[in-house]
């Protein structure tokens, strides 16, 4: 197990290096630097500023310094747009917010998605099944950027029950709509995966044997069927995490929750490359980390997989 984890962590290194170097080169090939504006600066001033941010060093040295900074101190350098803030400060401000509603959405999606999928599979071809399948298809064509305005229309403008945006330290009325908007589409995906995988398991031989020896349905479900049926769901959870972080961009923008997605879009619109790179690399790290956890979980549940 330990050897497996170490091997996986080692294989993450080239991925991160590719990501860092790629985004760094991309940033440097951009036409117009972070300090070019409508009113051009005098060349001496520009040279001074570039020297301050080490933009006049040879490119390999810049990459090397950046990689060393990121790896040794987790330092993404200064923001190019806000002179008095570092990328770390900007990320540090937004990330807890994203993490809070992201985690809640994740739990909601997994719990409700699994429940819906199980219900549909156990009552196959009844109205319950059709309802569950209908919900999951419907949720798939309503991505979060469509859900968000519809929710605001209903709950804020028509009913006036919930605030239309803001964060307010994560008070629950401010959490409800972001969580619903973010979790719905992958709750639907989880429900679909759960349904088809549980159906397949329920039709397999060992379940028939369990039935034949007279086990009650509840025991069959929880002791025999659920564990193998969970496997495809678990392997979906890795990509889910990425979808969640990506989705948070819309949530932040629409509900002005002030998470990391808002910082990303703002920096994209302001050409604040260092913040964009920092967030991209951070999300890359989290993705790799999450995929690792999913792999370990997978191996732990499925005894057929040897590490």
């Amino acid at each position: 197990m330990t050897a497996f984890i170490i091997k996986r962590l080692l294989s993450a290194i080239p991925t991160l290096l590719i990501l860092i170097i790629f985004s760094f080169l991309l940033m440097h090939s951009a036409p117009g630097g972070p300090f070019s504006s409508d009113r051009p600066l005098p060349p001496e001033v520009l040279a001074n500023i570039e020297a301050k941010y080490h933009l006049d060093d040879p490119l390999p040295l810049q990459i090397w310094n950046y990689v060393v900074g990121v790896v040794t101190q987790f330092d993404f350098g200064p923001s190019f747009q806000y002179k008095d803030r570092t990328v770390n400060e900007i990320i540090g401000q937004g990330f807890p917010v994203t993490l809070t509603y992201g985690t809640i959405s994740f739990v909601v999606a997994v719990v409700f998605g699994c429940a819906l999928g199980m219900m549909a599979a156990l009552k196959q071809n009844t109205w319950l099944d059709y309802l569950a399948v209908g919900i999951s298809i419907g949720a798939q064509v309503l991505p979060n950027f469509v859900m968000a305005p519809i929710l605001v229309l209903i709950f804020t403008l028509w009913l006036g029950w919930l605030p239309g945006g803001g964060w307010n330290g994560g008070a629950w009325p401010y959490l409800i709509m972001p969580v619903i908007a973010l979790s719905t589409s992958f709750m639907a995906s989880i429900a679909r995966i759960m349904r088809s995988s549980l159906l397949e398991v329920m039709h397999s031989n060992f379940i028939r044997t369990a039935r034949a020896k007279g086990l009650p349905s509840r025991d069959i479900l929880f002791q025999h069927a659920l564990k193998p049926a969970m496997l495809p769901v678990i392997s979906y959870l890795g990509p889910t995490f990425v979808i969640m972080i990506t989705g948070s961009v819309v949530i932040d923008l629409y509900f002005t929750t002030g998470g990391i997605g808002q910082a990303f879009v703002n920096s994209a619109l302001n050409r604040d490359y260092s913040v964009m790179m920092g967030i991209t690399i951070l999300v890359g790290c989290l993705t790799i980390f999450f995929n690792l956890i999913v792999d370990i979980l997978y191996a732990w549940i499925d005894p057929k997989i040897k590490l």
Partner: protein
Amino acid sequence: MSDTAIAEPGHEIEGSGQGRSLWQDARRRFLQNRAAVISLIVMILIALIAIFGPLFAAWNNEEVDWNVLGDIASMGGPSIENGHYFGVDELGRDLYARVVQGTQVSLMVGVIGSLIAVTFGTLYGATAGYVGGRTDNIMMRLVDILMSIPYMFVLILLLVVFGRSMWLLFVGIGLISWLEMSRIVRGQTLALKSKEYVEAALATGVKHRVIVTRHIIPNLMGIIVIYATLLVPQMILTESFISFLGLGVQEPNTSWGALISEGASTLQYGTYWQLVFPLAFFIVTLFCFFFIGDGLRDALDPKDR
């Protein structure tokens, strides 16, 4: 499963082999799936609107109707009399013309994006699977590495750095999703490679190139068509997402995502039609593609039922 093939033995003899009979069989199965057929018809209608829609528009998508500009919430609604079938947007532009234009862009992104993804993914996956060994190992390792890169963020980075152009968006979206495709194709190729007829072809001295084009690719077609259909809505979703953020297509061009974003931001002024019309096109199209994809899966891959 193969009872239909037995029922129609005539097709086995004529033509150049089993390939044709599979496709005829698949067409029959597809036509029996009512949801898929209706979706296909609706989809064709939407495509026709995208192509011929501008002919029926009373306004073009850049003209501003000064008559309604002053009071859009009460005068800019959908009406037949002044030629704004879907109403106008907050700048007094005809929404029908804009929705038609957005439909063109969104459908084009979907189709071109998934063509790029499918072509690239198939070539890559088939090469890795057929060559096998060391090459396969290295190629699939690379796919593994690329898979854990947060693509949406990289795509936005690309769009910001190189400026927003529609072609960059198309190519970028296409290049996001060839990875999954290449994995599927590789797995399928590996399975096909060890089939007896490939072995027989090899034994009789058929060239590798001919084996790939004559035996491997035709057998991959089913799965390629299914995934291509399921990719289109994903592409449309990705493009809409990027346009929603204001990083996609630029004015005066538009797309469903951009229109939905506009409609959502002006909802509070009571101009509901700005959200409803683009949203309806968007949702109906996605539904259609999902049902067509499902129908194709049932038709082409009957053992998967």
